[in-house]
């Protein structure tokens, strides 16, 4: 990864500025807010899959968990600051437990995928079946498939009556995304991030070099879940209702598709993939000639077959070929391509 952290910061500031000043003139801020939330969700999987080599089929579990945590805590507390924190911490703690169970069991690849998938299903089934009045946490009824409506939405910290909504909520989300992106960049530049990429490339070698692969993967997994949880809480504030469909397999599938289409192993790829595809879905939802799901599926198949690296790396490659200096490290690039999709120990 060329450049330095300060250069990253400038890029991120620039992108945020564009996001805040130019995008609202093209798309309504209400739609933009959800695109940003999805972008953050895409980034969370992009971090652990693209850089950590952990293919998690259940990123939606952490997203949903964040949203539900926020909703339940907000009903019980009646103020949004602490619930927002909880919505980050609870999924992270859950992921740390789950990750520890998986990584200390040395599960990889398919088994990892299946376990995360199954855990998502368990949550989905459980939440779906909690319609009865006996399922309460504090004052909050879990509500089964009806979800939880009517919780306290985001307010200025300490002032429960000053809601942040509409345009200002969009700005909050945009700034939070920029902040998360900056933190992710910083993490990837730190030695922890470099070791994580090393683990993705060759797990055995990293463990022989004396790094505790299991602990590092667990921590990275938890960080990804924390970001997904934050996205979930932001989603809950946007939608003003949380439903079990947040945990659904379709949601998990979409996150994976965003990452594939945007480009793995990049930070901007999953964000762009998420926002782009979500917007495409929004546009497609306004017509009824062709079914929405059909197109999503077709996009995924075509990308896996013809552009498995995703859009951002392909564009970056095109840029380098057209305008850049002659690439010196061709072999490194090829090796990165080959290892896409997981560390096969």
């Amino acid at each position, binding site marked *: 990864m060329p450049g330095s952290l300060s250069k990253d910061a400038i890029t991120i500031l620039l992108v945020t500025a564009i996001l805040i000043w130019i995008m609202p003139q093209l798309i309504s801020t209400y739609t933009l807010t959800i695109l940003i939330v999805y972008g953050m969700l895409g980034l969370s999987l992009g971090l652990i899959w693209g850089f950590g080599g952990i*293919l998690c089929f259940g990123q939606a579990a952490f997203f949903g968990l964040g949203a539900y945590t926020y909703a339940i805590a907000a009903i019980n507390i009646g103020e949004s600051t602490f619930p927002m924190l909880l919505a980050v911490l609870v999924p992270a703690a859950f992921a740390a437990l789950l990750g520890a*169970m*998986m990584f200390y*069991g*040395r*599960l990889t*690849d*398919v*088994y990892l*995928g*299946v*376990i995360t*998938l*199954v*855990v998502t*299903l*368990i949550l989905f*089934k*459980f939440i*779906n*079946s909690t319609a009865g009045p006996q399922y309460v946490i504090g004052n909050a009824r879990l509500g089964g498939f009806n979800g939880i409506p009517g919780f306290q939405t985001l307010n200025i910290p300490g002032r429960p009556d000053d809601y942040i909504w509409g345009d200002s909520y969009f700005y909050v989300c945009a700034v939070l995304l920029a902040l998360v992106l900056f933190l992710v960049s910083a993490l990837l530049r730190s030695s922890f991030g470099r070791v994580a990429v090393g683990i993705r490339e060759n797990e055995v070698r990293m463990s022989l070099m004396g790094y505790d692969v299991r602990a590092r993967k667990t921590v990275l997994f938890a960080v990804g879940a924390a970001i997904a949880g934050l996205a979930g809480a932001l989603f809950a504030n946007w939608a003003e209702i949380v439903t079990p469909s947040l945990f659904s*397999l*379709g949601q998990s*599938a979409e996150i*994976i*598709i965003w990452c*594939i289409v945007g480009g793995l192993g990049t930070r901007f790829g999953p964000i762009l993939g998420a926002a782009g595809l979500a917007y495409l879905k929004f546009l497609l939802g306004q017509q009824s000639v*062709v*079914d*929405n*799901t*059909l*197109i*999503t*599926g*077709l*996009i*995924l*198949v*075509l*990308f*896996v*077959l013809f552009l*498995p690296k995703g859009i951002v790396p392909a564009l970056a490659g095109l840029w380098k070929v057209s305008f850049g200096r002659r690439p010196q490290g061709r072999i490194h690039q090829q090796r990165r391509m080959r290892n896409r*999709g*997981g560390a096969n120990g």
Partner: protein
Amino acid sequence: MDLTVVILVEMLYAVASLILISAGLAVIFGMMKVINLAHGEFMMMGGYATITAVNLGVNIFMAMLIIAPIVVGLIGLVVERLVIRHLYGRLVDTMLATWGLSLFFIGLATMIFGNTTTGISTPIPGFAIGNYQINGYNFFIIVIAILLLIGMLAILKATRAGLIARGAMQRSDMAAALGYSPDRIYLATFFCGSALSGLAGAVLAPLVGLVPTSGGAYIAKAFITVIAGGPSLIAGLFSSAGFFGIVNQIFTFAISPVIGEVALLVAAVVLLRLLPQGITGKFFKGNF
């Protein structure tokens, strides 16, 4: 006494339906190492093929046991030629591409059949054991599952085609050197796997209301059954379906069907954590 019989039949039925659900995937994933996430949609299409055929006036058993497997098998052929063929050996990519396919088929089914529940009635009447009513169709499913296991075992172990297929899955280069075309063998195996999925979907169709998204209900169960089964195809299928089916039914009877489902999934997580190679990876090594 009556209750014991009923519970026993229900357990056998749960095991049998798990075997049915997973058989197609066991062939495609267990033999070909293609993670077919469109498996549930293959089953869904088997169900729709049956219902369409029955509505056109075909005998229901004919529709379930012959038409549906052939239709879904042919769809499988097209899918193999267009998509899967390019992805052999790339585990994660097959998973993603077939996930795309599954969404594609859901969309297609929604466009053709609409997003409504369709169904056909079970062709076998129920009967009473003491004070309990039992669905006669359950016995049909148990019989089909047993025949299916015996049939798969016979084909894989006792016929030349089965031998060639098993050989080509292990060393496709050796099979090629001996004059068999791995390309064709893969194609034929994928056809069989899809046909089995279609059969399962068709046989289970009278029991469930069919919607375009009903494949999602099967996929996770099929996966954990096959993966928990481990490397040996039929012994693995039988043992893990037996284990999960019994766990599911115990909790269903003791608490509620939802807890039964959750117990099945929790059992799967625990089992995979303890035996990451699957049941047969540990206990019955190397036998089909």
